[in-house]
């Protein structure tokens, strides 16, 4: 254990024994709120825009991220469909919602009773949001499919890249510990 001198500026502290990052102050809440709202806004069209069009010998297929997982579900692989859906798409979205539930009231100067619960859920989900893995998986799948027929990348794919980027920026900017500080309201 070490004593941590708290500076108001964005300093960072490391453990003297293993040099792990102990604490780094996050960005102001209003920036994070804007990023989280952007992430959620990008998610809405993702649910119905196709990620790609595939054309094999005149037969056409279009697929959104959700339709692809729905097929897996219909094949009887419920667990795979469920876990992929949660980790790849829904957990990042739920994390953004929880974050807004915490930060928006704090930003407007009051601390609602649910904050502790939202915080705990957010912390538990942090490990399980895998949007970046899902993004690489989409790219791998596209390369695999290139050999099968004519392929056009749909608008959903571009949106998914932006969705991932804003999600990533939001989680990096937000340091959940900051919500406990007395001056959290000033953010």
């Amino acid at each position: 254990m070490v004593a941590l001198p708290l500076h108001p500026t964005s300093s960072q502290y490391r453990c003297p024994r293993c040099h792990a990052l102990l604490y780094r102050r996050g960005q102001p809440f209003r920036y994070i709120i804007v990023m989280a709202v952007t992430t959620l806004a990008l998610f809405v069209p993702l649910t119905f825009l196709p990620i790609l069009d595939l054309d094999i010998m005149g037969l056409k297929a279009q697929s959104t991220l959700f339709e692809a997982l729905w097929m897996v579900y219909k094949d009887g692989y419920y667990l795979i469909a469920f876990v992929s859906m949660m980790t790849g798409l829904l957990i990042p979205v739920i994390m953004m919602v929880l974050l807004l539930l915490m930060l928006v009231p704090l930003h407007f100067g009051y601390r609602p009773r649910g904050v502790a619960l939202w915080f705990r859920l957010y912390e538990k989900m942090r490990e399980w949001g895998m949007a970046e893995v899902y993004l690489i998986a989409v790219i791998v799948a596209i390369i695999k499919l290139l050999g099968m027929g004519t392929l056009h990348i749909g608008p959903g794919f571009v949106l998914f890249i932006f969705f991932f980027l804003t999600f990533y920026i939001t989680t990096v900017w937000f340091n959940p510990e900051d919500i406990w500080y007395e001056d959290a309201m000033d953010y």
Partner: protein
Amino acid sequence: MKMRWITDIEADRQLCLHCRKLHPLTVRVCDRCGEPVHQRIPHSIPVTWSLTVAAIIFLVPANLLPMMIVKSIAGEDAGTIMDGVIYFLEHGEAGIGIVIFTASIFVPFFKLTVLFYLLLIVHFGWRRRALFGLKLYRIIHFIGKWSMLDIFVVALMVGIVQFKNLATIVTGPAAIAFMLAVLMTMFATEHFDPRLMFDKEISKKPETKQHEGIDHG
């Protein structure tokens, strides 16, 4: 170099692993975020052991059974994880082949090896290796989720390629075994308390707040 820290037992403090509030050792539930507070993660070692062993067992069918079955006019083609890697290497997409090999074969085996090593460090009290072990722990914590890559790829392929009689892709039984193995290694990593590697003696009951039994590092 002189040690610049004191241990949690010496200071009579324990950390809430969720909101990082410091509490005296007698506190059971964090008054700030409401999570239970423990000096060390309870039953960390037995749970990590069992999840590690279970993951090894699941990895066997995951690597032997087909991951994805392609049905087309040319017939059925069932491929294991390794077949997928070889396919890419043969078709001049070495980059993708290496990505899949790393995510689906190298990472799970590396994680399990590291988990074993960490458990041995705690079991035999090799505290000189604790720092190195901690570095490995951070690596497997970081790369853990990437093993899910192949599962997502299979899920996407199955969802997209549905051309009735011409070509259809079906999920193979290995996918479910592989996913369970990956999830288990992730749970094992989360349940392992790396601080145990630095403790001088393994406390028989981490939950009893005995001051003797755990020495000071």
